[in-house]
């Protein structure tokens, strides 16, 4: 099982390359088979994963550019494990529920390449390798938005590419600078995260590097004020593009904060808590208001995504076990929920070719099954207890409560606000009288739509009731992370703050 990570990364890519030979009409089945195999592989990874070990597992290393210390270095820990499973699961579900008719073959090949890059991002432990996969996600996503998208797709695709590319280039400079600092302190070139974790940086260097990494991550989260590309990209992207964008690509950067910013720059992280929390709060409140104002259902969900990403940011920068575990749990939860939401919008769009909320109304009459599924997903999105959304949001906010009760109070508005916009959207779509003839002709979900959405609903409820399967291994890793931060902090001040926020005890 040593090679399982490399298999996870390169199996979809190899399958995609071979996939060029397959006939157009049979391509969807091929895509489903490949993603199911990939999902099973990721479950195997979980099976062999030792939950008592906090460090990296299944580590594999191979020198690529030894002159400059760049290696092929991969591994997983409790944080990345479940994100990987979420990725493979969501890709599988997205392909099962795929209804796109135009050039399906190209779409599926692109999706498989995208899956490679996404898995690659979450398992890379060499910074340059991480950067490679990180940037490579742009090409397939650019193609998906730009080719299968709606009217303004060129603009959306190019804006998406340029925003994220610029941010990550600044991050690259930061990475190279870190490499240089590492070389100065130790005399060898290395971009391995293991090596980087062993050096302790002076405060001002940490500050600058934190800012450089912040640019790369913040544009992709996206944080206010770098968020303008996201609603546009979501609004124009096809259903499958939105699912992947919301479920996976947005999680890459909060993951980046946990993997890089926190352990590498502990002092800077503590220093910037207030700043990050402010950005998170702006995202939560401002974006929720924007979401309420949207007429387009997909845009609304896009804004609500940004709003929830604000909660995740808060959780990460709570800097304690509850907050970070909660943030990771919310990342997984939000991935599943927002994927399900976008898929539901896709169901409506396929039938009516519109996403405008006002076009619908009274759909509960002729689509009872769909109305039920949508309701469960929606409740998970607003964070109703016993759904997956609740656990993550609760833990994130609980973690942040230790830092500032007042800000947490403001942040918990997220639940109220999201209830307002979500329920009003639900009311306008599903309740009331069924007036329009086009709406009367709409059929309820069936077959693979039902299967795809149904399995998401099952997961939403199951993980909402019994989160321990994920939280346990997560806690082991995150506890280790917070300890590392405390040990590595250079200022006494920082250590104290870290100790203070970490004094609630573990979540069982």
């Amino acid at each position: 099982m040593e090679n399982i990570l490399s298999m996870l990364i390169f199996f979809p890519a190899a399958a995609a390359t071979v996939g060029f030979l397959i006939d157009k009409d049979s391509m969807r089945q091929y895509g489903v088979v490949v993603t199911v195999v990939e999902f099973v592989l990721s479950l195997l990874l979980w099976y062999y994963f030792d939950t008592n070990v906090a460090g990296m597992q299944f580590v594999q290393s191979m020198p690529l550019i030894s002159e400059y210390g760049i290696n092929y270095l991969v591994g997983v820990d409790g944080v990345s494990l479940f994100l990987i499973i979420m990725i493979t699961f969501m890709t599988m579900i997205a392909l099962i529920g795929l209804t796109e008719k135009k050039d399906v073959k190209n779409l599926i090949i692109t999706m498989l390449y995208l899956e490679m890059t996404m898995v690659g991002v979450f398992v890379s432990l060499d910074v340059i390798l991480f950067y490679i996969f990180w940037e490579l996600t742009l090409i397939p996503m650019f193609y998906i938005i730009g080719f299968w998208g709606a009217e303004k797709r060129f603009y959306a695709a190019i804006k998406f590419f340029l925003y994220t590319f610029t941010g990550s280039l600044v991050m690259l400079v930061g990475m190279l600078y870190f490499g240089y600092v590492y070389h100065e302190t130790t005399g060898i070139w290395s971009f391995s995260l293991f090596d980087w974790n062993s050096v302790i940086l002076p405060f001002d260097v940490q500050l600058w590097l934190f800012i450089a990494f912040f640019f790369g991550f913040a544009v992709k989260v996206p944080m206010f004020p770098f968020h303008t590309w996201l609603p546009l990209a979501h609004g124009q992207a096809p259903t499958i593009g939105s699912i992947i964008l919301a479920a996976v690509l947005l999680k890459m950067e909060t993951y980046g904060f946990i993997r890089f910013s926190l352990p590498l720059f502990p002092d800077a992280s503590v220093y910037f808590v207030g700043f990050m929390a402010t950005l998170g709060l702006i995202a939560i409140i401002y974006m929720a208001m924007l979401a309420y104002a949207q007429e387009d259902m997909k845009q609304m969900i896009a804004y609500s995504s940004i709003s929830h990403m604000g909660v995740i940011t808060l959780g990460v920068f709570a800097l304690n076990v509850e907050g970070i575990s909660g943030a990771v749990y919310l990342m997984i939860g939000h991935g599943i929920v927002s994927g399900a939401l976008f898929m539901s919008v896709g169901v409506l769009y396929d039938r009516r070719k519109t996403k405008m909320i006002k076009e619908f109304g009274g759909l509960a009459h002729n689509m009872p099954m769909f109305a039920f599924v949508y309701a469960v997903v929606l409740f998970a999105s607003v964070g109703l207890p016993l759904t997956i959304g609740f656990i993550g949001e609760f833990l994130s906010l609980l973690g942040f409560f230790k830092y500032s009760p007042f800000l947490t109070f403001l942040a918990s508005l997220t639940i109220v606000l999201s209830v307002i916009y979500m329920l009003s959207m639900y009311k306008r779509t599903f309740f009331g009288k069924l007036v329009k003839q086009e709406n009367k002709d709409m059929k309820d979900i069936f077959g693979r739509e039902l299967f795809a959405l149904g399995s998401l609903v099952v997961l939403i409820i199951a993980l909402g009731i019994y989160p321990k399967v994920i939280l346990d291994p997560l806690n082991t890793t995150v506890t280790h992370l917070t300890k590392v931060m405390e040990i590595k902090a250079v200022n006494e001040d920082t250590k104290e703050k870290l100790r203070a926020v970490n004094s609630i005890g573990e979540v069982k």
Partner: protein
Amino acid sequence: MLEPINISLESLNLGTLAPMVIAIIGALSILLTDLFNKDKHKSLYVILVALFLIFDLFTLLAYHGDERGVFDLMLLDGIAILSQCIIICGSLLFIFLGLSKLRFQDFRYAEYFALYLFAVAGFQFMVSSDSLILIFVGLETASLALYTMIAMHNKMVSIEAAIKYFTMGALAAAFFVFGSMIFYGITGSLELAQIAQVLTQEGFLSHENYANYILVLVGFVFMFAAIGFKLSLFPYHVWVPDVYQGSTSAMAGFLSVVPKMAGFVVALRFFEIFVQANDPIIQTMLYVTVVLTITIPNLIALQQKDIKRMLAYSSISNAGMAMAAIAIGTQQATTALFLYWILFTITNFGAFGMLWLNRGKEFEDYSSPYAFKKFSGLAKISPFTASILAMFLFALTGLPPFALFWGKMYLVASAVNAGHIALAIIIVINSAIAAYYYLRPVSYMFLRDPEEGTKAKFMQNASLPMKSLVGFAVFLLLISILLIDPLLNIISFYVSNSGY
């Protein structure tokens, strides 16, 4: 009565001349072949050129001995060998673009191929000398050959391009001579090593010797302009787009890579003196030129509607990035320069090669076969062609893991390591700007449907050898991550050998 001077043949070390002599013999033999046989097919000459270039390369690699030769005119040090290798390999790649399917005027002359070899020989002389006279002779040999080759395409636009290039080149040559004259006047020598020695010994670059300082600056400015013309640095870059547009893609690709390599080596040898002296005025001048050369053409490229002109501006900007390595001046930066240029050669060969494969004959003078519009919907018509062209464009953007990313990364790293964080940021921001215009043809190819009514034909000019060569470039592009380590080893060996 003067004493007769005795010189032994060995002390001349004629081996240093051997590689260039082979290229020249090759050129002469092509001329002779043409003299006795009329109207031979171009493939004969293409293969002859390739053969002599390979021979040239092997002679160069086999050379062992003293690096100086021919009254110290020749200097075959590490960077001379390295850059000659790049020049020869680059020329070798581009000559195969002559094996196109369609018949073009220029390839019907055997003289074209002879001139090609003369140009290569000229560049080889340029890089393997530190005497300003020999550099000048090499430069002029090569440039005159290039002017003629561009004009041989026999269209008005090509002749216009050739004349523009010639006038600009003549001006640059005059600047070069004038600059050399001033340096000779100040230091009494035309050899860069001795010039450097005199400059530092007499303190011409310090405040004590203020009267001569101005002269040095004037000389530097003239030399800078001359080299700037050859490297298409801002503001001496204006000839580039027109010349590229006028010449065939095969020629334009050659122009964007090979002459600049020679130019960079001259620039490296010459600017090295001043970069090391840390003179504030000269440093500022270099720095500003580098920044403007990277930025301005990038901004102009945003407005282009034609892939070839866009690539012309992009290659100016890329030259600026490589020039940044010289301005930084550390050993890592010099290594980065060569790494960058090797990877740029591969990538640009691919990009121009793909354009050349898609060249048709249905175009009038002054109209372009490579407008963005022509390529719309290419992914539907021929997904393979579109993917390959897109891959080269992404590589030029600097997306990992394609070839040029590593060059850019190493360059940015060397800037960061030398403390030039601002320069590093400028370089990466320009990569982001450049991403926009590289994405435009990609979005035409992949995101749009084919133009209604137009029956655009693709790959008209493709022949099997050319396709396989572009395929080889794709292969190199994809496995570039594995090439970097050996390349870095070789480059740093040669660079540290010659002490840069």
